[in-house]
């Protein structure tokens, strides 16, 4: 903010001070919004294209070259569609819900450092802010489901609420490790703490486990397959947004995808070294290269999401909650201990081995306890 203010001041000294200040505040927000809205549009295209290819289809290929303008066509179509509000719906809440879905998703963007020295707002509690704000989507989800006055919507909303609340816990605990390692809640300091060849937190045993937990929780939080129960189309039609059409539906989609992107951004920031990468410190184009690094890493997360969606079936609601409470929660607690062991170890090697062994034992034990009687091998006889 200050740098931009300085920049404006240098190039345009005649500009009144209040305008320069306002510009300095609004410009980064506008840029971040613009960039991420483009990324959102691109993501819908990439997702449909990639899912198509995974499923031996071509995906969108009619609008523009290789279907690149499909998101625009979709947006226009949804804009012009009739907006239907059920008679029995709670009109005000029904209207507010899609708006409230989008707001937290975009608010999280504020604390994601997209490039070196580029962040909308560098809050000193950045990560906590992101986690806190993303929980607020629960309410929007519930409002949508409840206000629609539809049983499928209500079921979807209750599932969604239970799911987000459950996965919030291991998610925060997985984030704690990172906070312990970096000693700060500010997203920029977390990124800066990951400098070095193997500095990324994901390259450490506790970081890897934390990353996996965090990624799984993020997928659950934004309801991506295999945790897409709130909108499980084969069970409860479209879940909480069953009764939405037109642009309200588009807002739900947008909120969901932007949330997926921002969650990916937070994951990248916390575990994959954010914008760090070779060349990110170059004086001239460092910011560009670092932005490329950030988006490349974000791309990997997004691809994992799409890939999983194209491959795995959905878990059931009790399995989903059991997974969070019985496996992820204890594991993330052990992970904190492992981080402590690492921190107080006499030297790096000992810390590595100790925390790795601790985590391995914990994982094996937890899996044994939980999955012991779940799967069985079947054999079939043939009569002739």
């Amino acid at each position, binding site marked *: 903010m200050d740098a931009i203010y300085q920049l404006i001041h240098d190039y345009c000294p005649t500009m009144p001070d209040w305008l320069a200040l306002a510009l300095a505040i609004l410009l980064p927000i506008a840029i971040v919004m613009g960039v991420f809205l483009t990324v959102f549009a691109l993501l819908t295209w990439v997702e449909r294209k990639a899912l198509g290819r995974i499923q031996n289809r071509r995906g969108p290929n009619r609008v523009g070259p290789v279907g690149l303008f499909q998101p625009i066509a979709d947006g226009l179509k949804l804009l012009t569609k009739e907006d239907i509000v059920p008679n029995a719906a709670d009109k005000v809440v029904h209207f507010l819900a899609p708006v409230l879905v989008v707001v937290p998703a975009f608010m999280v963007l504020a604390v994601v450092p997209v490039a070196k020295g580029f962040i909308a707002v560098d809050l000193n509690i950045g990560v906590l802010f992101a986690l806190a704000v993303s929980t607020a989507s629960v309410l929007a989800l519930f409002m949508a489901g409840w206000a629609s006055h539809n049983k499928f919507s209500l079921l979807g909303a209750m599932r969604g609420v239970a799911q987000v609340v459950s996965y919030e816990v291991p998610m925060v605990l997985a984030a704690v490790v990172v906070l312990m390692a970096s000693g700060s809640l500010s997203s920029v300091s977390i990124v800066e703490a990951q400098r070095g060849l193997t500095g990324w937190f994901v390259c450490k045993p506790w970081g890897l486990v934390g990353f996996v937990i965090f990624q799984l929780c993020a997928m659950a939080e934004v309801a991506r397959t295999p945790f897409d129960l709130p909108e499980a189309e084969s069970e409860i039609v479209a879940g909480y947004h069953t009764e939405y059409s037109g642009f309200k539906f588009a807002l739900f989609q947008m909120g969901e995808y932007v949330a997926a992107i921002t969650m990916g951004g937070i994951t990248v920031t916390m575990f994959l070294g954010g914008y760090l990468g070779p060349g990110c410190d170059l004086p001239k184009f460092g910011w560009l290269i670092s932005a490329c690094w950030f988006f490349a890493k974000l791309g990997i997360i997004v691809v994992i999401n799409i890939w999983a969606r194209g491959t795995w079936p959905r878990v059931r609601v009790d399995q989903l909650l059991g997974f969070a409470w019985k496996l992820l929660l204890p594991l993330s607690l052990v992970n904190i201990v492992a981080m402590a062991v690492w921190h107080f170890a006499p030297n790096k090697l000992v810390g590595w081995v100790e925390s790795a062994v601790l985590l391995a034992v914990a994982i094996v034990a937890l899996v044994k306890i939980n*999955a012991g009687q779940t799967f069985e091998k079947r054999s079939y006889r043939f009569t002739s």
Partner: protein
Amino acid sequence: MSNLLGKGMIDGLVVTAKNFVTSYFDGNRKDRLFTYQYPEERMKLPENSRTFPFLVYDGTPDQMRCTACKVCETECPPQCIYIVMERDANGKPLLRPRVFDIDISVCMQCGICAEVCPTNAIKMDCDFERSAHGRFETLLSHLPELLKSNDYYHQIKSAEATRVDATRKPVKKAAAPAPVKPMPTPADILTEDERSAWQRGCQSEIGTGPIVWPPPVVVKKKVAGTNTEQNVSAAPLPTGTPWHDSGIDIAARMELAKDRSLADKLMAAMAQLDCQACGYDCRGYADALASGTNSDFTLCTPGEEETKNMLEKLLKEAGKL
């Protein structure tokens, strides 16, 4: 079970990744990307593929193969075919349809009409682009649209058409005389409701009795001594041909014709479809058999075994065999 938890899920990822990548390097397109991008690329339809029926003509549309025998109309499962034979001013059948309508919104493309046609006149087309804006008129095909040349038939189904050409007997058909006056179409004589019912294929909704087709010409005649008028049929329908209906079996037909001449009896034994499979119309075949100019009693294809047996019996009784 897999020894390592999660192996199954990883395996799945490998499969989808393989599909993703190979879909871009797909030599034989049908191995991976199996959809056709329809308006631009079209599947080569196999020769047997069938959509809606059409009528074949040789040379000019006048020389249509159809003899209006109504076999297809009888056999059509959803009853979407409607045929009226053309007759001259004296009511003599001209062995060609005046009205031949197929309601393709009812047609289920089963191809049974083409299978049962004794004259190879009706065949199945390959044209599937038949969507239209209206539900009724636009989807009702009349004779002019249905008629397609034998060349077209060769073009879409060459092997089958060649096979048909080889087995077809040349049919002697009188050149079509100029029609005396235009035959009313159903649109002219049915009420609005009945017309829509007919177009929907709901024959049962039309009136109560069977449709008499062509409709008798009715004139108003003054009854002597009164002021009232009476409806009198001007030209009664040609009698003497017991109406063939799959509801009337051969025994009943013979009963109807028992006091008539040999030729009439012979004709009653036939399927009376004027299909020309024998080379005559039914009346002509009956006359030929009765006069002895033709002694082959096996020519009536639509009548099948029972007609053959009955013809043989009648001819034997009359001492013609």
